[in-house]
Structure formats: C-alpha cells, structure tokens
C-alpha cells in the first residue's frame, strides 16, 4: 500500500483528471454543434415562407415542389459563399483584449434561446427573424456570463434595431411601386385578355432568386457559430475558414429544414396578410430579391424575413381592391419587437443554469428538449401541412371543399380573373 501522496498516484490522478476534463470539453463542443445544426434546421424551416409563400398561394407551383426547389437552392447557396460566416459574433459581443471570452457554454445557452423562440413563433405562425433570435440568445447569454458591459449597445442599435424598423418600410414601398406598375402596364380597358396569369411563370424565377440569396446568407450564420466553437476549443486555428465538413452539415441541415416547411408561416405570409394574385406575388418577390441583394452589396444589412413580410404588405396595398389584414400585420410586428428580448431572456436563463457547470448544461439540455417536444405536441392539435396550408383559413373555403362548389362560368370573354 502506497501512501496517497506518493508521486506515482499523483501523476495518475492528474492524468485521469485531465483526460476527464478534455472529454467534458469535447462533449460540450459536440452538444453545441448538434444544437447549432438544429438551429440551422429551424432557420430553414422558419424561412421557407419568405421565398415560397407567395408562389404557393397563387398556384405558381405545387406546394411540395416549391419547398423542394427552395431546399435545393438553399443547399446550393450554402456552398456558394463563406463570406458572412464569421460576422455572427464579431462586433456585437466585445471580444479579445479587455472583452469577454465566449465560452462554449454561453454559445450553447444562446442557441437554446434562439431555437426555443424560433419554435414559439412558428407555433403562432409568425414570420420572425432567425438571426435576431440568434443575436438575442447570444446577447442574453453574454450578459449573464460576463455582465451588461459585455454587449455593445450602440452596435446593437445600429446593426439590429434600426435595420429591423427600416427594412419592412423599404421593402413595402418598393413592392407597392412595383405592384402599381405591374397592374398599370397590363391593365386593358378593351375587355381582351390581359395575360396577367403569365406572372405565375415568372414567379418561379423570382422566388428561386430569393431562396438562393437566403441560402448564401443564413446557412453561414450556423457555420460561423460552429467555427467559433471549434476555434475556442482549439480544434481550429483562429481566423480559419469553416471546414468543408461543417459547410456540408450546415447546408444539409438548412435544406432539410426548408423542405420540411414551416407551413404555419407559409399560411400567414401567403394568405394571412392579404390575398396574393400572380402579378402581385411576382412584384413582391422581385422587390424582396432586389432589396436583399442591394442591402447585401451596399452594406446595409437587412433581415430576409422582415423584407419579405414588408413586400407582401406593400404589394397588398398596391393592388386595387385588395385589403391588408392589419391585425395580422400588427401581430407580426409585435413578434419582431419581442424576438430580441424574448430570446435574450431564454438565453440568459439557460446561461444562468449553465453556470452550475456540467450539471447545469445537462439541466439546460433536458429542459430545452422538453420544451421542444412540448411545442411539437401542441402543434399536433391543429396540424398545418402542405395539404391544408391554405384551407381552413376561413370557413367558406372549408365548406367549398366539402360541397365542391363549382366556379360560375364568366359571361364575358375576358381573360382570367388573375
């Protein structure tokens, strides 16, 4: 029997200890990567509507084909660029000298906040910005982990809050003008067919452009987070690009999420705000694509979700005889206002529990999985899918499905009622 203080046992216990901590460390890195990929999934899931709600609503594409196309374009888009991949935490949370060391636990807490808020807004069918949810979650976690001073509030105001207020306004105005123009040019007073149904064909291309632009932007946020974690774990050199495996995993996660389709949000954007007609849908998608491309190339970052919602509202205002349901628009606006603080609160709570160490992380995960399962269970009560996304919006449409009301044949030899 050796005494406990002998050099050999000390060495052995140190070895065991260091092995144990390194296992813990990789475990949390793996957990963060899994959660980041799940966040990517919810991101795709949430944002299918931005590109595909209007073409589905006007019948330009079958719902399943539309989401499949969006999924493929998101997959392709994720491989096209890695430019924005590292902007996610740069600037907003003070890093480096005198700043905070972002720990994997904090990123984990931030992701939990973002995922839960994304699922809650999905449950209510609200299109809300996934990047705001991610920012909010990370900010909440950073405040708990490193105090209020760790967040640069001026940057937050300039980069997140103001753009959020301005993007629907710009997109709405652009869509309003485009819609007016589309109807003015194709309007005929001589009762000959106006060919407006031809806009359906163009919608396929305009919405594809939105989906591709989304893929190049949004998958990169997750790539950025995963790369950040790998760098902080020492698996990658600081400042290195996301590895191919990370890019592939993120691209697949966002594509699968997009294909699954957040049908509740598609319903809100496609029918909830205003009844979209082909010309109007084309105008809305074109203005969404134009606004996003202009913003990403002229350096004033705008959220895809907010641009898309603003476009739909603007096009609803632009078409004669259409009305915008301002109640729904108000609910969406409220959702946007709450996104940042709400996900920050969830992220902060998760970070607070995470301070307990390994036990805290385990509690975090158990609670998060519980909440996610609960949200999916609640969603089963009134399931919205490709089949019924636009039915059951009002009772008249529902009864039409049941009794098969035939369309009354138009008497005039006028074109389609498009």
């Amino acid at each position, binding site marked *: 029997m050796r005494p406990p203080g002998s050099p050999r046992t000390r060495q052995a216990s140190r070895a065991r200890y260091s092995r144990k901590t390194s296992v813990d460390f990789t475990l949390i890195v793996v957990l963060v990567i899994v959660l980041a990929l799940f966040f990517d999934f919810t991101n795709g899931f949430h944002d299918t509507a931005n590109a595909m709600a209007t073409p589905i609503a006007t019948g330009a594409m079958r719902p399943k084909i539309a989401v499949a196309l969006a999924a493929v374009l998101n997959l392709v888009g994720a491989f096209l660029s890695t430019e924005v991949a590292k902007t996610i935490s740069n600037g907003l949370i003070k890093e480096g000298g005198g700043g905070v060391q972002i720990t994997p636990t904090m990123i984990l807490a931030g992701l939990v906040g973002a995922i839960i808020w994304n699922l809650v807004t999905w449950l209510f069918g609200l299109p809300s910005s996934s990047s705001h949810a991610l920012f909010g979650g990370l900010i909440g976690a950073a405040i708990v982990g490193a105090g209020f001073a760790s967040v640069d509030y*001026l940057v937050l105001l300039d980069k997140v809050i103001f753009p959020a207020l301005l993007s629907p306004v*710009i997109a709405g105005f652009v869509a309003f003008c485009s819609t007016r123009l589309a109807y003015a040019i194709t309007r005929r007073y001589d009762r000959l067919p106006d060919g407006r149904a031809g806009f359906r064909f163009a919608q396929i291309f305009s919405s594809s452009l939105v989906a591709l632009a989304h893929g190049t932007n949004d998958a990169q946020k997750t790539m950025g987070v995963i790369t950040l974690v790998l760098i902080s774990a020492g698996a990658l050199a600081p400042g290195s690009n996301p590895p191919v495996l990370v890019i592939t995993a993120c691209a697949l996660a966002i594509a699968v999420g997009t294909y699954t389709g957040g049908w509740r949000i598609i319903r809100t954007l496609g029918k909830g705000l205003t009844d979209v007609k082909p010309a109007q849908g084309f105008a809305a998608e074109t203005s969404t694509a134009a606004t996003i491309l*202009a913003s990403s190339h002229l350096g004033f970052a705008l959220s895809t979700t907010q641009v898309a919602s603003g476009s739909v509202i603007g096009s609803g205002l632009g078409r004669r005889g259409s009305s915008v349901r301002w109640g729904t628009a108000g609910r969406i606006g409220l959702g946007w206002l709450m996104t940042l603080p709400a996900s920050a609160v969830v992220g902060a709570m998760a970070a607070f529990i995470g301070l307990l160490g390994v036990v805290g992380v385990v509690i975090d995960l158990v609670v998060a999985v519980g909440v996610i399962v609960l949200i999916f269970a609640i969603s089963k009560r009134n399931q919205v899918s490709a089949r019924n996304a636009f039915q059951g919006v009002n009772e008249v449409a529902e009864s039409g499905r049941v009794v098969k009301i035939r369309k009354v044949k138009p008497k005039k030899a006028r074109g389609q009622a498009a």
Partner: protein
Amino acid sequence: MNGIDWVSFLLVAGAALISSCAVVALYALGLRMLSTAGKAPHVTPAEFTDAITIVTPTEAAAEAKRIKKAAARSPLTPWQKRLALFVAYTCFVICGLVVLFGIYLIVPALHEH
C-alpha cells in the same frame, strides 16, 4: 461608428426601388405586348390553394380556348403583331439577363477574384 449610415440606407432603398421596378415593368410590358399580339398566356394554377375556385381540366381548356378566341379579335395588322411579339420577347430576354445578373451578385466566386 455611431448612428445609422443614412447614405448607404438611401442607396440601398434607391437601388432596390429602381431594379425591382425595372424588372417588373419589363416583364409586365412583355406580357402586355404578348396580349396585344393576340397571344395572351394562359397559365392554370398548379394547385388550387383557395378551395372555392377549383377548375377542372375541361374548364381550364375551355377557358384557354375562350381567351384564344377573344385575343384573335385583335385590331392589329400582321406586321404590328409581329412587332409587338418582337418587343415582348426582347423584354423577356432582358428580364432573363437581369435574373442572371442577380445570380452573379449572389455568387461571390463570380464577382470576386
């Protein structure tokens, strides 16, 4: 850097407004010229999401026929029709080019060396 960069904000708004209106106007003009030339497109919805207006294939075919018949009553001379068709196809081609430019802007590998 404090405050919003209003210059870049206005730049984004202006660029988006001009490009979006240009594309929409071109495509709309193309459709207008097609219908002027007596070839108004007839695109039946792929799916009737609004359960009330369900059109059977027979009804859709009848609608297409009716549109064709109505369009044939165009007062234009054959040359005018040909010109209208030419303008229409030119508009669509320009629209296609703008979409390609959009893809060029989206893919960084194309515009960055």
